[in-house]
């Protein structure tokens, strides 16, 4: 349905060229939830903003690759064509609900606006539909809420309004950029349930960006782990959680707090910091923090190895000529379940 191939994106800044994405590949199929996981600055937001073409045209440079939506390359679309895609075919919700709604417009107007843009001119019918949408996302008293402003809503309620706007035109794909990061756990659980419900009802695909592995386990069927502007590993949730092969994925798992964690056990953080994308390393971006790094890791970016139908990984440890046996390495990761 949506396929991103070798997407390479740079930004021109005063400091120089930031190579934000260096060949990103992933695919989303019909009715499936893909989670993109990674730390800040790994390029996950840049990736989805490229899909929606939300970057400022004067700074962004799409160097290579394609974004195929139903076989058509979105990177070739004009702004006018993109407007037909945004909101109708692919829509997006953001992390910061405080700034992504317009504070000077009533919530109702913000929902009917998108219906109007995409061709429904009957105001009365639009209002009816907007109220229905508000009800569908679990907002009590939608007739009254329709005329209220965003500041009259709490954070969780605002995210519900965002979801109502994003789902108004029945998009095929919903992109959610850390939609629950700013919310409390109890509200997060409500929003996740709501998204799953909508997804099932309308058979939407969702691209869900997060750094919380618990949320990934809750909502996703497929996962792509990003680091330093590339997808280092991707596969089904089971591939990633139980059969992962990339040292960065292990590191992420090991540094996640678990409720059942024993206090006496020390956490195993990934030492060091992510690479500077102004001047990215020649080899694997994770090499400087990787316990298993070899000489080749600092010299050459590893190719993708196919491990299963969906399971793909970019790591030199998987090379058939690699002297280290990856399964031996895995055994040393005692804490990894």
């Amino acid at each position: 349905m949506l396929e991103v191939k070798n997407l390479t994106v740079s930004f021109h800044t005063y400091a120089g060229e930031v190579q934000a994405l260096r060949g990103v590949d992933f695919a989303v199929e019909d009715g499936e939830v893909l989670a993109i996981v990674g730390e800040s600055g790994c390029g996950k937001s840049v990736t989805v903003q490229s899909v929606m073409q939300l970057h400022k045209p004067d700074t962004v440079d799409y160097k290579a690759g394609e974004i195929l939506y139903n076989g058509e390359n979105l990177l070739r679309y004009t702004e006018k064509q993109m407007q037909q895609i945004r909101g109708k075919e692919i829509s997006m919700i953001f992390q910061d609900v405080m700034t992504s709604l317009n504070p000077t417009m009533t919530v109702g107007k913000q929902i009917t606006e998108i219906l109007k843009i995409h061709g429904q001119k009957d105001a009365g019918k639009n209002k009816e539909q907007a109220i229905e949408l508000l009800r569908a996302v679990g907002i009590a008293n939608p007739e009254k809420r329709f005329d209220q402003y965003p500041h009259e809503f709490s954070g969780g309620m605002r995210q519900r309004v965002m979801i109502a706007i994003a789902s108004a035109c029945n998009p095929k794909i919903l992109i959610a950029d850390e939609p629950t990061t700013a919310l409390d756990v109890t509200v997060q659980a409500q929003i996740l349930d709501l998204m799953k419900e909508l997804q099932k009802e309308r058979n939407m695909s969702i691209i869900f960006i997060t750094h919380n592995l618990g949320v990934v386990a809750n909502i996703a069927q497929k996962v792509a782990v990003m680091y330093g502007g590339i997808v280092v590993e991707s596969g089904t949730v089971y591939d990633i959680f139980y059969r992962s092969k990339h040292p960065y994925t292990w590191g992420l798992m090991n540094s996640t707090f678990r409720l059942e964690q024993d206090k006496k056990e020390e956490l195993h953080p990934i030492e060091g910091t992510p690479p500077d994308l102004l001047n990215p390393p020649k080899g694997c971006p994770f090499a400087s923090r990787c316990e298993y790094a070899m000489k080749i890791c600092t010299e050459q970016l590893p190719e993708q190895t196919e491990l299963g139908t969906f399971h793909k990984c970019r790591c030199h440890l998987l090379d058939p000529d690699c002297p280290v046996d990856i399964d031996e390495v895995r055994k040393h990761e005692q804490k990894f379940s």
Partner: protein
Amino acid sequence: MSKNLVEVRGLKKYFPLGDGNILKAVDDVSFTIREGETFGLVGESGCGKTTVGRTITRLYTATDGQILFDGKDVTHLNKKDSKALAKDMQMIFQDPYASLDPRMTVEMIISEGMKIHKMYSEEETRNRVYELLELVGLNKEHATRYPHEFSGGQRQRVGIARALAVNPRFIVCDEPISALDVSVQAQVVNLLKKLQKEKHLSYLFIAHDLSLVKYLSDRIGVMYMGSLVEVTEAEELYKNPLHPYTRALLSAIPVADPKEENERHRIVLSGEPSNPINTLAECKFYSRCPHKAECCKAGLPALREVKKGHFLACSNADALYVDNQGFL
């Protein structure tokens, strides 16, 4: 057992809103923190946990109640005693970007407290800064740099070094890692644990992430709308949560394991906390509680010990969990 270092008795902090209404951010909260212990405070945003921390470090003046530090009442102090106390009590803030002065070098930031308290000579102060930088995993060369040259995790380390500079006995950590990346969070947590062991520090650890609080704390207090609803040891809270709110909080945390996550039964709370401005006749949790009963209409009861070391504020708890031993 070690003695109590911090004792909070009936603490209240009200904020007048200007329109005649009063926001009861902290409403009658009592707990103690023992020497060398970490006390965790959890709850949703707006529940008053940060206000508790800030009132204890006396960034806010308490409306009512008492704060005892090392047996002395420190709720209201004159300027001189206040300054002396500031040496014993330090704070680490949530936002590593906003809590460091962008126009000061790291050395100036870390040494400021030592200079104010006239602790060391100039040369000693400098050496102490280097020592602290190394202690928190940075190095000497970082001393002349400015905050903007550091990543979030490194800035938080500078914040920790600043808090440690005056040799405090007690540190309030207000969500010190929630602004950091997952891989860096674990680094800072390990550092906080190591420092506690080495320097015999006591922490008040404020966070909304229960899995993290459980890992770090000896005892935990769960707050809801300005009141403590449950206080007990970390392990006990996780194994036998009694208050319906605590149970909902625990069950809302997504588990990083897809198989378990699929099978888990989750208590999803409906709605959000009611407005803390209105004084409610019934229990504060009434509108969201899955186990509400007639007796709950009388209001939120005081904390009482239902099991050794396990304190609970719930009118209906007897019927639900305690008598029939219906622990999880």
